[in-house]
């Protein structure tokens, strides 16, 4: 299991397509971190807003006040919700051997590695779409991705994340709230970290 170490600020970049919930994922993550008393920031990159277009969302979590507003250029964690985006060079831009990639995929690590030979960091695949189909009955994989992220990164506790996810989806329906929490927990326990 990777540890966030003593670095005071953790920077995360989410990649997905419009409608897949990259922005929501970044927001839920920092809401959970705020519950733990951390300083937080989450913001999406807005282009022309179209369903299916590649989108980025950024999150910072820190033990100190966050001042910078520049986009995240060198992410500590890269969360790829749509695996077809991985080959897009802008996704892995600014990564180093210390970057950790969490990707929605049922392929093994070495197969993913072969698709991005220039990426030098560690890769954690999680079949988030599979989990989403099973628990939420549709491909809403942003929440299970957060479950995997929580386990791998330990940037937030799964308990706080559960609270944030539940209170977000309960405003839509009780079923959706419970299904998302269940998907979150499933990914947390399934990811090989």
């Amino acid at each position: 299991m990777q540890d966030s170490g003593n670095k005071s600020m953790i920077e995360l970049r989410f990649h997905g397509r419009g409608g897949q919930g990259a922005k929501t994922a970044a927001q839920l993550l920092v809401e959970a971190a705020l519950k733990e008393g951390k300083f937080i920031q989450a913001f999406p990159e807005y282009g022309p807003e179209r369903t299916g277009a590649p989108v980025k969302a950024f999150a910072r979590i820190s033990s100190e006040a966050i001042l910078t507003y520049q986009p995240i250029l060198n992410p500590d964690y890269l969360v790829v919700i749509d695996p077809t985006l991985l080959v897009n060079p802008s996704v892995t831009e600014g990564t180093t051997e210390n970057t950790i990639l969490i990707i929605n995929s049922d392929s093994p690590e070495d197969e993913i590695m072969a698709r991005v030979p220039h990426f030098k960091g560690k890769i954690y695949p999680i079949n988030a779409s599979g989990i989403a189909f099973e628990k939420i009955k549709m491909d809403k994989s942003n929440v299970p991705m957060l479950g995997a992220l929580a386990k791998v990164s330990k940037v937030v506790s799964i308990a706080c994340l559960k609270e944030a996810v539940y209170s977000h989806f309960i405003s839509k329906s009780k079923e959706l709230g419970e299904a998302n929490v269940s998907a979150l927990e499933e990914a947390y326990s399934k990811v090989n970290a």
Partner: protein
Amino acid sequence: MQKKALTGAGASAEAMRQINPDVVAAYPITPQTPIMETFAKFVNDGKVSTELIRVESEHSAMSAVIGASSAGARAMTATSSVGLALMFEVVNAASGMRLPITMPVVNRALSSPINIHCDHSDTMACRDAGWIQLYSENAQEAYDNMFLAQKLSEHPEILLPTMIMQDGFITSHSVEPVEVLDDETAKSFIGSYNPEHSLLLSKKPVTFGALQLFDYFFETKRQQELAMDNVWRFYYSIADELTQLTGRQYPLAEPYHTEDAEVILVALNSAASTIKAVVNKLRKQGKKAGLLKIRLFRPFPYSEVSQHLQKVKSVGVFDRSYSFGANSPLLSEIISSLFGLEQAPKVQGYIFGLGGRDLLEADIEKAFEELFQGKTSFEKKYLGLRG
């Protein structure tokens, strides 16, 4: 006080909920829309007693709040960019009629080319419209400034409208921790609004928006300027009262490591925050970097700015808008602030971030580096510009 995860737009809407204005006129425009969307939900859920008027344009939005405010109501609207431009005629009417309207403005570039992202060309185009202008570094300030604005505007010796700025998307759509006052505390700070004159006070009939030609117009405008001067007299008592509740300070121009600085950058809104991050980095390397953040742009705090900048060697001024063919708006004010000093610092203007171009820490470091080397000129310099 409670710490919430809010966007800048959410923070403005939260302040509006607590202020509970009598009348709000709503017309959508990116990136302001989430303020009104959130506020409309509060209206729908019965969280406020506001009458929300959905109007057909920004010109109508400002006209509606002018009507409401003249009738003695606490009235608000919100806008961005070309929405503010469309309002311009009546924006001036609001200040001329001495109506204490408050309006969050989420900064966005003006057309053309059409662009939805941040720069300050919209509110800078209104800097001479007779409104008080407060700029906000982050979501917290977007929230706090709403309360300062309401008290300033409604002060019987001021009675001027206020715009409260925040950067489009960068602040308006970024989730941050925001300390929110308890509803009761917020309510008692704001107090009730009982104007001395209004259209509905039939025992004291008055005219709003009269015709004045060469007989009285000039005197009326002079009174408007005197009202602006009164902002200096009452600002700090209002700000100190808010500090009692929040523990935060609200200087007109906020110094950040300026005491012993060799180079000071001057900026508005979110750029000030990113510059603070760079100042911290440079200070760790032993470099004497500083920042002066301007909160109040109208009226402009010339003497405070001059005090903070007079001992420094070089000043870099960051403008997120042009004044085509002239010094950019903030640069022009900084040069005026320093005029007449015996040993005025050298000043370099930088244009950055137009139409939402990212301001990178590396750009800011580059500007600091040039200024540490004493490189200043009368030419406009650019950060993040290609070619």
